[in-house]
């Protein structure tokens, strides 16, 4: 794999963060729309901010696309560290793919919600819920991605590991940080609500910095990986398997 391709894939992850938060800011949703608002208030927000929310939908949709090369690079690293028999690689790749959907799907729903803001307020509220609940709640893909990568880093037995061991532990911690958001459906106010301290601020901060830190580490690793001789026999086995 050429070094430039690695750097490009890693940069997509960093760019994703800017596109994602750019989109959220375009809709005026830092902080997010409170889940405690009634249908009329939600509908009024959509009516007055329709174009901002539409812009967010487009930006976040492309953001989801940007995570594709990033997730592919991460999975390829896992396969490199894991060796020929690579279940962790599969876990990481599937989780990465699910992660794309997890970001893509809410963007589509937001686009639909902001498309006709003049409809009945209850319908707009339902669409708004349909977008925000999965957008903040869907931790498992990111958790599986981070844990499988972390295990691969700590299990890397090579003489010149491409990643420092702390990055493995960091991934475990990130996975842990996504847990509180998983119970947001029970709350309309407080730290677990989708605009709350634990579900939004913690998860969003950790999620954003995660892509930047991982992107930087991937760029740093590109040199190490490129200078490694490609183990041809392993490659053969992999194809055979």
């Amino acid at each position: 794999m050429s070094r430039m391709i690695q750097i490009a894939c890693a940069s997509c992850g960093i760019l994703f963060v800017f596109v994602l938060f750019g989109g959220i800011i375009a809709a005026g949703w830092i902080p997010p729309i409170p889940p405690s608002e009634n249908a009329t208030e939600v509908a009024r927000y959509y009516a007055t901010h329709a174009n901002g929310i539409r812009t967010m939908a487009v930006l976040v949709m492309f953001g989801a696309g940007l995570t594709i090369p990033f997730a592919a690079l991460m999975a390829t690293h896992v396969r490199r560290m894991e060796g020929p028999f690579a279940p962790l690689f599969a876990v990481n790749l599937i989780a990465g793919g699910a992660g794309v959907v997890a970001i893509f799907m809410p963007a589509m729903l937001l686009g639909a919600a902001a498309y006709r803001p003049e409809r009945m307020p209850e319908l707009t509220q339902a669409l708004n819920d349909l977008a925000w609940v999965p957008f903040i709640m869907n931790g498992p893909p990111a958790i599986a991605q981070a844990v499988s990568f972390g295990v691969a880093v700590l299990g890397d037995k090579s003489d010149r590991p491409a990643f420092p061991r702390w990055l493995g532990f960091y991934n475990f911690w990130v996975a842990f940080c996504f847990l509180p958001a998983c119970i947001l459906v029970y709350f309309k106010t407080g730290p677990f609500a989708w605009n709350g301290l634990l579900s939004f601020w913690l998860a969003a901060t950790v999620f954003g910095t995660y892509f930047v830190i991982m992107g930087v580490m991937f760029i740093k690793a590109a040199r190490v990986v490129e200078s490694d001789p490609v183990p041809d026999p392993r490659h053969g086995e992999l194809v055979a398997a």
Partner: protein
Amino acid sequence: MSATVADPSIQANDKIPSPERRIPGEEGLWVFLLGDMAIFALFFGAIVVLHGQHPAMVIASQHALHPLLGLLNTGFLLTGSLFVVLATRAIRNGSSGAAGLYGGAIACGIGFAAVKAVEYASLIRDGHTAQSNDFFMYYFVFTGIHLGHLLIGLVLLTFLLTRARKAKPLTPGQRVFVDCGACYWHMVDLLWLALFPLLYLVR
């Protein structure tokens, strides 16, 4: 660090002159442990804020909890930590008692989980579930996440127990793993030391 060693006055003040100030476990482990502790600090803060906003609801809910079971669990975790301290020392010295000591720590951990199960069951039987009010939601979620940490710790201790049974001396990698497992277990203990008074006692 080298300055500390070079300065005789500072060294004289040290109770235990340690030429090698060493990181317990490995550097990366502390990214996880301190990070985890930081998240739990947010949990602690959430409990205190809830207490301030709805004191009557919190105090009424606290009366439904079983502080003596919580007290018993604190004893289990502190004693488990002592077992791990002794086991770590034994396995580092290569003495034979390590496996038994890890066994003691595991027994304490299982005791904690069993008490927690009894507590959950009794609360739910009394009609207090996570849906009852915000306090019980916090109670079940925070103690549940803590219990999850404890179960992971039990898995780590079981690994260490199996390793301690072998007569072979530790490799450098295993030495690090022994310390990591111990520190993780102590963190589970440490987090409970704040959760227990905040949930059960601070009115």
